């Protein structure tokens, strides 16, 4: 039989948050947002680097299924999620997450179809380019919705004959 017991810790954090002084929520959120704005150039560089790395990785894919190749691509994309929002390209984060979903599902199915991956990477390249131009890519939502549909197909996978 499993041995279960409870403890009721007193968290120092709870007391610290209530200490006098501190910040108003609005001021803190504004200060944090201003801090993030300073990271914009570095995050744009990071997004461009990740996009290029993803392309290079994809170019090295063989003709047969390779879990190692998919894992490498997954790692590149997962590491970059979050920088898009800081550099003014939140849709790039969406595209990266969709690509992570896609690659994860392909690994589960032990298959690797090139076109769905390629369309994600091409979209990332466009979004990174537009972010560098200062374009907020406001109309990219439709494109993102399309990418999510592509990834979702691998939850209920198409027959192998349809793959590239």
């Amino acid at each position, binding site marked *: 039989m*499993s*041995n*279960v*017991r*409870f*403890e*009721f*810790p007193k*968290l*120092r*954090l*709870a007391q*610290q*948050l*209530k*200490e*006098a*002084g*501190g*910040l*108003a*929520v*609005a*001021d*803190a*959120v*504004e*200060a*944090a*947002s*201003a*801090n*993030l704005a*300073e*990271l914009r150039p*570095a*995050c744009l560089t*990071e997004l461009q680097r990740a996009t290029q790395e993803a392309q290079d990785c994809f170019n090295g894919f063989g003709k047969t299924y390779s879990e190692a190749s998919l*894992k490498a691509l*997954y*790692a590149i994309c*997962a*590491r*970059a*999620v*979050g*920088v*898009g*929002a*800081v550099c*003014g390209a*939140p849709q790039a*984060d969406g595209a*990266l*997450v969709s690509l*992570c*979903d896609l690659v*994860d*599902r392909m690994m*589960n199915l032990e298959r690797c179809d090139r076109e769905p991956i390629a369309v994600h990477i091409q979209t990332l390249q466009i979004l990174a380019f537009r972010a560098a131009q200062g374009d907020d890519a406001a109309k990219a939502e439709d494109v993102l919705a399309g990418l999510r549909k592509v990834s979702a197909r691998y939850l209920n996978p198409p027959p192998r004959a349809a793959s590239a």
Partner: protein
Amino acid sequence: MSLDPKSRARFNLSQTVVLLFDPQAAGLSILGEILRGLGARNILRCRTIEEAEKTVSESQIDLMIVDTVAESGAGFEFVRWLRKNTPQPNRHAPVLLTAAHTRSSDVSKTRDCGSHFLITKPLSPIVMLERIIWVAREGRPFLLSDNYIGPDRRFGKNDRPYHPRRRHDDPPEAATEEPASEPLGEGEAPIPFIDRPLERAS
């Protein structure tokens, strides 16, 4: 419970020792700048699990924000190690996990590693603050069993932390376009729901 980003309620993280773990330089910078903006002054940044374990062994930590590391799951292992192998008070420290993506095979690790909450990237200041306040609330028991060590995962239905709001829900220009806020009055109360005890699951 939802936190209005324009609220004048106050909170104080200036004395809080925060450990941040993210192997990615950009991720660690983003996290650090958010915490710095929220008023944290004692921020310990770690890029490797070894660094994080050493830091936990040497310092009393009040809050840990740990990236899961999607490709390896190293963040889950760190939290598991923390809960199992470190003495109090660090063993009980609130842990927020951040995740770029969760592989379908890792969903159970997210639930079972012993963290308090998972925040999906991209991160936003208001969501981070909401979660910090939420994990600090009193009354959540810590459960120790053969298979799980961590905060009680059962919530009362009124205690579930709000809808998932993400960075891109916050209009970036909104803060600068707002007129200057009224000066804070004397005796402005702290965020009220910090004191509200958690409701036990029925």
